[in-house]
């Protein structure tokens, strides 16, 4: 540690700390332009000059990259410095008279009008001030080195190498962010990187998947993280105090042996672009329910504010129920949760804005505990409920200010009239549908699907959480649309089933099993490779086949195949089936 004196303040800092940092600690302001915490100090703008006094000698240095030494004292605002800074500022102002950051600094330093006239005067508001932050950040932090300076002296400028789009650029936007004047802009010419799940708001490359994520820790999206592109950046590691960032962690596939499996693979939301009449994906301010949920979220892109794309508060909001559900063209079933979340949306919008709220419903299904009461309360809040499914959404204009809006055309079946209702914002209550990969999952566990595509329970009333495959249970929307209480109930029941088996320590298996009657088996081995479970083994010493009853699942294929009927299937013996035939064909 060294102790130095800055102006009248004494400050103790580690050796080699730049004077600028030490001044910061001492609470002394030094103007900067090209300085950035993210990169190596470059000392190009010269605004941060200070006078370093050592004994009787004094010299002017750039404080951003001049390291402190024991015994020096620093003058940040000596007449000499003031005069030099003013001159520098005047030079800048004469060259870039309209750049805001330059003008602000000049004002701060008391420079009103430059005493020079620059021959290279650039009157643009976003002129490049040659601070070099963009070049530095690209080189030092991102390590892409996609930007550089060209030419010298008065002709110096920031360019892409050879003036062409660089393949080294990872489109991270660090240069844009660092540029103090807005001169560096990002123009996305080509869609790059993966499609974000929702198009609302920015997402960083390191993020917490959702507020309710368990465990609630951030993850790195390696596809968009700069570090994984160039090896640079590591900003998150720098700022993480407990050093929890580990770039070497890899996705890994683990094999875990388990005895029972609960399949709770959830659902997909219906893609409302299939119903083009509602304009989703085509018209602005038309949202899917999940997007709107995000918008309302206090950690969402608008911090929970209900606002349109232009940042204004909507005058009216429409909520259309049953998008893709209760619809013969899409899903015939009811998605069950939409009525209630639509009411919640209405409540929240009512709470946060002055917007008029219209709900377009087929039937209101407030079926759960407290739900009907909530519905009544919403009616009292002044929500307009229109019974009738909206026919289409068109574009329209408010007559007072000529701003664009959306027009919902519908039939209000309660008054028997066609209506056109202007809304600034439209929320579609998308159907819950089976996951796109449910077929693969189904085959994996050899369970069935019901006609709606959701996994089929063993019995709709008596066994709603287990499946036809022993040890495989289902819960939540994987089994069918349901709300959180129902999901929790089903999952709890499935967990209880699983636990009861675990605590029992042994499993009961159906008595439907194949068995070899040894006195009739002659070891022809026809059955030997028929069993998908490998339950049939050939006993070499006895020269007969044998069924391992624990492995056998009782399908009876081997029973039918056994040419000498030595294989018999408990529960479905030949005699039993023939007797059945006898009975039904009297």
């Amino acid at each position, binding site marked *: 540690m060294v102790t130095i004196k800055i102006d009248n303040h004494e400050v103790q800092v580690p050796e080699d700390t730049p004077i600028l940092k030490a001044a910061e600690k001492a609470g002394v302001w030094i103007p900067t332009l090209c300085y950035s915490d993210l990169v190596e100090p470059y000392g190009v703008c010269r605004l941060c000059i200070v006078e370093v006094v050592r004994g009787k000698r004094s010299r002017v240095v750039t404080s951003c990259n001049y390291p402190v030494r024991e015994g020096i004292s620093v003058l940040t605002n000596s007449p000499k410095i003031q005069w030099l800074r003013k001159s520098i500022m005047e030079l800048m102002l004469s060259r870039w008279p309209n750049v805001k950051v330059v003008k602000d600094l000049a004002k701060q330093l008391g420079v009103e009008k430059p005493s020079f006239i620059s021959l290279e005067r650039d009157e643009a508001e976003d002129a490049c001030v040659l601070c070099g932050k963009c070049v530095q950040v690209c080189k030092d932090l991102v390590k892409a080195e996609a930007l550089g300076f060209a030419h010298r002296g008065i002709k110096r400028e920031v360019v892409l190498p050879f003036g062409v789009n660089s393949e080294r650029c990872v489109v991270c936007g660090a240069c844009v962010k660092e540029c103090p004047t807005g001169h560096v802009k990002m123009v996305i010419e080509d869609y790059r990187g993966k499609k974000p799940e929702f198009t609302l708001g920015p997402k960083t490359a390191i993020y917490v998947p959702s507020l309710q994520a368990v465990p609630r820790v951030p993850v790195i999206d390696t596809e968009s993280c700069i570090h994984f592109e160039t090896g640079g950046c590591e900003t998150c590691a720098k700022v993480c105090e407990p050093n929890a960032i580990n770039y070497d962690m890899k996705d890994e596939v683990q094999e875990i042996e388990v005895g029972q499996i609960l399949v709770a693979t959830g659902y997909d939301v219906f893609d409302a672009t299939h119903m083009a009449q509602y304009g989703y994906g085509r018209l602005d301010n038309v949202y899917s329910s999940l997007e709107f949920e995000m918008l309302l979220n206090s950690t969402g892109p608008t911090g929970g504010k209900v606002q349109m794309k232009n940042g204004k508060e909507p005058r009216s909001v429409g909520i259309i129920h049953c998008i893709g559900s209760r619809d013969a063209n899409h899903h015939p079933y009811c998605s069950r949760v939409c009525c209630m979340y639509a009411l919640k949306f209405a409540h929240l919008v009512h709470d946060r804005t002055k917007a008029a709220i219209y709900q377009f419903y087929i039937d209101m299904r407030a079926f759960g505990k407290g739900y009907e009461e909530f519905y009544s309360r919403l009616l009292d809040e002044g929500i307009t409920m229109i019974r009738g499914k909206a026919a289409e959404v068109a574009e329209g204009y408010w007559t007072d200010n000529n701003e664009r809006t959306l027009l919902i055309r519908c039939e209000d079946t309660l008054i028997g009239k066609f209506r056109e209702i202007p809304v600034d914002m439209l929320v579609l209550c998308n159907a819950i549908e089976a996951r796109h990969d449910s077929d693969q999952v189904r085959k994996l566990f050899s369970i069935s699907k019901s006609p709606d595509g959701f996994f089929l329970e063993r019995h709709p009333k008596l066994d709603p959480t287990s499946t036809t495959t022993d040890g495989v249970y289902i819960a939540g929307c994987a089994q069918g649309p349901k709300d959180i209480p129902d999901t929790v109930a089903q999952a709890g029941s499935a967990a209880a089933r699983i636990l009861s088996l675990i605590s029992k320590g042994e499993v009961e298996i159906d008595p439907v099993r194949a068995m070899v009657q040894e*006195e*009739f*088996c*002659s*070891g*022809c*081995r*026809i*059955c*030997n*490779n*028929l069993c998908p479970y490998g339950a049939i083994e050939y006993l070499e010493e006895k*020269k007969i086949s044998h069924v391992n009853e624990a492995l056998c699942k009782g399908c009876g*294929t*081997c029973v*039918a*195949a*056994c*040419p*000498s*009927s*030595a294989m018999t299937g408990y529960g479905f013996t*030949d005699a039993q089936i*023939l007797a059945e035939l006898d009975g039904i064909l009297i």
Partner: protein
Amino acid sequence: MAKPRLALYWAASCGGCEIAVLDVQEKILDIANAFDIVFWPVAMDFKYDDVRRMDDKSIDICLFNGAIRNSENNEIAELLRKKSKVLVAFGSCSMEGGIPGLANLTTKDDILKFVYKDSPSTVSTNGGTYPQTHTKMPEGEIEIPEMWDTVKSLDQVVDVEYYIPGCPPQPEQIWNVVSYILSGQPLPPSGAILGAGEKSCCDECTRTKSEKKLKQFYRPFEIQAKPDECLLEQGIVCMGPATRDGCGALCPKAGMPCRGCYGPPPNVSDQGAKMISALSSVIDAHEADEIDRILNQIADPIGTFYRFSLAHSLLRRVDKHETH
């Protein structure tokens, strides 16, 4: 004590069963000694009237071979049933129709038409001369038995106590049965199959068996079968797995596939259906076209899988009416 009275009869049969009885060789003398042979048309001179004159149930054991093909077979079956305490269906034909039973693939009319009219060696005049059951002759009307449309097994016309399978039954098995009876031990329950095992032919077959996967069927002359491996695994349709043991697996041991003469194993109701089930299980194909290609290699399913058991199978005979 009087010797037990033995009768032997042949109905629709080739005579092989009779030869099989003689094939017990010198033990035939023991049989002759032990039994009082009261009726054996093929070997000794008896008339049906001799039998008719006997008291009911006066024959202790009647070995009846041959299928029931005509009214005479039926009449004598009924007669012997009346006169015998124990009636034994002897050989495949009487047990399950046997080779004559394959006549159930066609009809009496078609057979007569071919034999008396259409066969290339027949010179037919006036549209063919068909045998008649009654013919007037100068000496009076003579009568020959009427051929039936459907061949039946013995137990389809009368009650039968026991069965001795085989085409023909193996002499040592015949002797086993005879010596058992002579030993005076209690007879097995009615309906039992004697002179055979409880397993399938594979049990006696010495060929090495392993897991089966078939992609191709061959007829025996189409390939040179490996001498020690299961014939079925080599693609030769061998009925062994669906055939009762007792013969000593003579055919497969000699390189020919089992034809199924010992009939279905215990618990199997239909030999052909069972074999079809077994075979189709081990065909190694998952595509309909491929399955079809393999199945088409079996030209004559009934002739292959019901060679001996058609008349006694679930459907008994082919229907010439429905599809034609």
